[in-house]
């Protein structure tokens, strides 16, 4: 039934335990309050305050790494290494987004103090999602994150594309949230609890798995499918990604996806592992269709943001293959691969979008693949970064993208799903074609180029340097990251 409120004692240590979640939120709220008093153009302080808050929060996550796992707030917030890993990832993602945003905001004239507040709010929601121990907390985190994301997509409200993208995202997203909530309600009706562990106990103790249960489960999976932009729930993604301010596109492609996958991971491994023979085929099919549709659609894209959007849909497909393996006893290897891949994916996505920001002029004028012609000659560093990012997305060694696919696919093969890996691998070949198209334009069609100059940005330069170096370092020296990923899997270890 409902949590027993009368037994809820306030334990002050909970503040310090939850600090890594509270700090981003408080920082955001502070920004929201203070920015009223700051003139329109001087929003840089908000960026600095956000970075400061994120750094504090990151530090806070590292403090709890070696402590034993705990379930807080009556079991709805799980403080374990899985949560800490993902929280650190989300904080990093937010940090990269801010680095990309500072200059972008100035160029586009989008001086909204709420911008930074909203990203921090979304990050808070993401952390709740990753830490959710029961379905209510999951929904809370999801909505917190989503609503912030809807607003951020359409924050450039005077222009057509952002408004269209935001509208599509919001309408379909609200609908999907409704479906998810309905699924949660049905599951509660069938099992009598929201708590993930208690749901598992319900199943193992022979609770009745009737139509209500299965419908609830199915609707929950559908809701997740939407958030992750899996096919056939992906139709909002290309428009939303294209219309959103480019730093937010990167934020959504990495953070929102990772958060949704983290929550799905917890749900699938904590609540329903014992009925895996029912949801594994669904995820198998979903993964295969998602990567194929994503890759095929990307082949014909001319707008680089849409191309990257469909590519990100395809990558969601690759990530979902790990979930198929979670139903077997090889889940540890699959989880390692998944977490490693998410790190690699974050790095390469921000590198690619960073370049897109610089190349596109004000108002996203130059976002066509043809606009990259001749970049190799005129701006060799920029072209190099883009090439590395694209090669990593395609999965060509020795980048992190290749090693991510290697570890992920080896775990899935070990789990026995070689067929799915063959599909994934053939999809990778397909993707090489559209990933190489900007590279062809940048280096091999130099005669056709017109001279273009770009303004330079220090912050984006920092972000690009870090991510490009990371793509190589995380790839070639992958064992350190793999170790972190392995250690993060405390929720599965006995």
């Amino acid at each position, binding site marked *: 039934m409902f949590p027993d409120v009368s037994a809820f004692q306030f334990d002050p240590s909970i503040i310090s335990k939850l600090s890594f979640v509270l700090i981003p939120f408080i920082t955001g709220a502070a920004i929201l309050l203070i920015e009223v008093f700051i003139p329109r153009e001087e929003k840089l302080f908000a960026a600095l305050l956000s970075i400061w808050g994120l750094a504090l929060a990151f530090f806070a996550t590292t403090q709890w790494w070696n402590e034993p796992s705990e379930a807080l707030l009556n079991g709805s917030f799980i403080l374990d290494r899985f949560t800490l890993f993902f929280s650190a990832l989300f904080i990093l993602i937010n940090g990269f987004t801010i680095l990309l945003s500072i200059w972008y905001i100035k160029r586009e004239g989008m001086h909204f103090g709420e911008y930074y507040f909203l990203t921090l709010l979304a990050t808070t929601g993401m952390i709740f999602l990753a830490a959710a121990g029961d379905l209510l907390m999951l929904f809370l985190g999801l909505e917190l994150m989503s609503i912030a994301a809807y607003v951020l997509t359409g924050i450039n409200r005077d222009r057509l594309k952002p408004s269209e993208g935001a509208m599509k995202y919001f309408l379909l997203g609200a609908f999907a949230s409704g479906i998810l909530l309905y699924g949660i309600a049905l599951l509660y009706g069938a099992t009598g609890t929201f708590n993930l562990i208690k749901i598992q106990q319900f199943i193992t103790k022979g609770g009745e798995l009737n139509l209500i249960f299965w419908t609830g489960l199915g609707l929950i999976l559908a809701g997740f499918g939407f958030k992750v932009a899996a096919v056939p729930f992906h139709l909002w993604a290309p428009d939303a990604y294209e219309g959103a301010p480019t730093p937010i596109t990167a934020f959504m492609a990495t953070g929102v996806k990772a958060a949704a996958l983290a929550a799905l991971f917890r749900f699938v491994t904590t609540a329903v592992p014992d009925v895996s023979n029912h949801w594994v085929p669904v995820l198998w099919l979903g993964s295969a269709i998602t990567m194929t549709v994503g890759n095929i659609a990307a082949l014909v894209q001319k707008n680089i943001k849409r191309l990257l959007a469909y590519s990100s849909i395809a990558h969601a497909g690759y990530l979902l293959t790990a979930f198929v393996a979670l139903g077997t006893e090889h889940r540890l290897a699959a989880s*390692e691969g998944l977490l490693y891949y998410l790190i690699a994916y974050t790095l390469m996505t921000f590198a690619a979008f960073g370049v897109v920001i610089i190349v596109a002029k004000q108002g996203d004028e130059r976002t066509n693949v043809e606009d990259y012609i001749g970049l190799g*000659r005129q701006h060799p560093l920029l072209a190099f970064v883009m090439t590395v990012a694209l*090669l990593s997305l395609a999965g*060509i*060694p*020795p980048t992190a993208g*290749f090693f991510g696919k*290697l*570890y992920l*696919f*080896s775990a899935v*093969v*070990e789990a026995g799903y*070689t067929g799915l*890996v*063959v599909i994934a*691998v*053939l999809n*990778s*070949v397909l993707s*090489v*074609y559209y990933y*190489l198209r900007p590279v*062809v334009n940048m*280096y*091999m*069609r*130099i005669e056709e180029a017109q001279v273009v100059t770009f303004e330079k940005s220090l912050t984006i330069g920092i972000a690009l340097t870090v991510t490009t170096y990371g793509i190589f370092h995380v790839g070639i020296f*992958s*064992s350190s990251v*793999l*170790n972190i990923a*392995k250690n993060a899997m405390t929720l599965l270890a006995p």
Partner: protein
Amino acid sequence: MDFLTIINGHILSGLIFFPIFGTLLLLILPPNKETLLKWAALVMTIITFLTSLILFVRFESSFEGMQFVEKYSWVPDFGILYYLGIDGISLLLILLTTFMMPFALIGSWNSITKHVKGFLCCQLMLEAGMIGVFSTLDLILFYVFWEAMLVPMYFIIGMWGGPRRIYATLKFVLYTMVGSLLMLVAILVLVMMHKAQLGFYSTSLLDLLSVKVPFGGTYFSAQTLLFLAFALAFLIKVPLFPLHTWLPDAHVEAPTAGSVILAAVLLKMGIYGMMRFAMPLFPQALEQLTPILLGLSMIGIVYGALVAMVQIDIKKLVAYSSVSHLGFVMVGILALNTLGATGGLYQMLSHGLSTGALFLIVGSLYERKHTRIINDLGGLAKELPWLAVVFFIVLLASIGLPGTSGFIGEFMILAGLFELYPILAVIGTSGVVLGAVYMLNAYQKLMFGKLKTGPHPSKDLSLREKTIFVPLIIIMLFMGIKPGFFISKVEKSIDHFVFKFHNYKYPKVGAK
């Protein structure tokens, strides 16, 4: 004593990373000082070659097993090691690589005018990748080098190539990647089998050789499928008929240096992959599929030769001649006897030299006449006598005239094939005859007959070009006269290679 041990323990890594270090060095130099860049790159490739000579000299012919071994843990969770080591086969192929690189650079000295720095960096990275492929004993490390090599080659063809270069390079990359990615899946399956049977993860070749891959006797058995996945990746590179269609486009559109390295080294990687990995790991599947592979190789020999005969573009002619010659090499390897395998390896070296030289000749011709169409040219022997002489000698080596390197290889292959399947040896010999036909025909059309020169007569071979061709010819003749010099190094390795299959086929027979 200690100094030598240090060398032994690091020379392979040195060979791989020195070109990479060279790339970084080139990146620092200013892009407009092109002569400086070219000389710097050339010096580095020469140093790499001299270092590989150390490898040759210090290689123990009588030692059975891998030499210059370096083994470090890389990704312990998955058992991936940084594991290098060579035997006689790898040794000779590494030498071929380091030997041909300086010639490729000198050959394209004047023809690469844009983005010289980028070109040289790509060449050096390519060299590093190639040496890496030939020297690694860990399957994942092999895969990394194998795929990583695609990137510089993609740029070399795509940026400095001919008019259809983008199509050619994309075809090359996508074709190769399909094969390689399926091989990756097969590697993963093999590693999982190893874990299941032996209890720990390992991706090193020597461990994986002890996996008992189930063989059911049908074409769908596990071993056959895994073998096919590996073989696909390698046979595309060989190239084996009918997987060869990427080759003519890639060769024709690539710049001279690209074609030289492609023909001389990259094609050999396919055969090396078969010999080192695919064949030893899946011997029963190999036996099952040998008839088909032999058949396709034979078709390749004859088909390549016939198509070469009707080409009007010299470069395409040489490309198809590669298909034919390498079909020969595959036949030799598939014979699985000492004669055939040694012949195959020797023919690989000879083909690398002669076809590399042929592409350099074509490059020299193109620099002067700006056309590769045979009918547009004629009587060049009057205008360019030294070029004609060089061309003829290289042609003889390519055809396999006794006294040149080509003969040794071809003869041994045919002899080895005759031991097993006499009929096929007869067909194979026809391939030799056809080879002579199309090459001599092309030579006659180009060099003899009416002089069809352009508006200005061209100069004969410059000093630079003589520097390339004279050493190449000397080596080709040396290889033809004293084959034992090289074969002595590989005897043990070839024996080991052959012995494995005979041991499996005829368990009662002892060594050799």
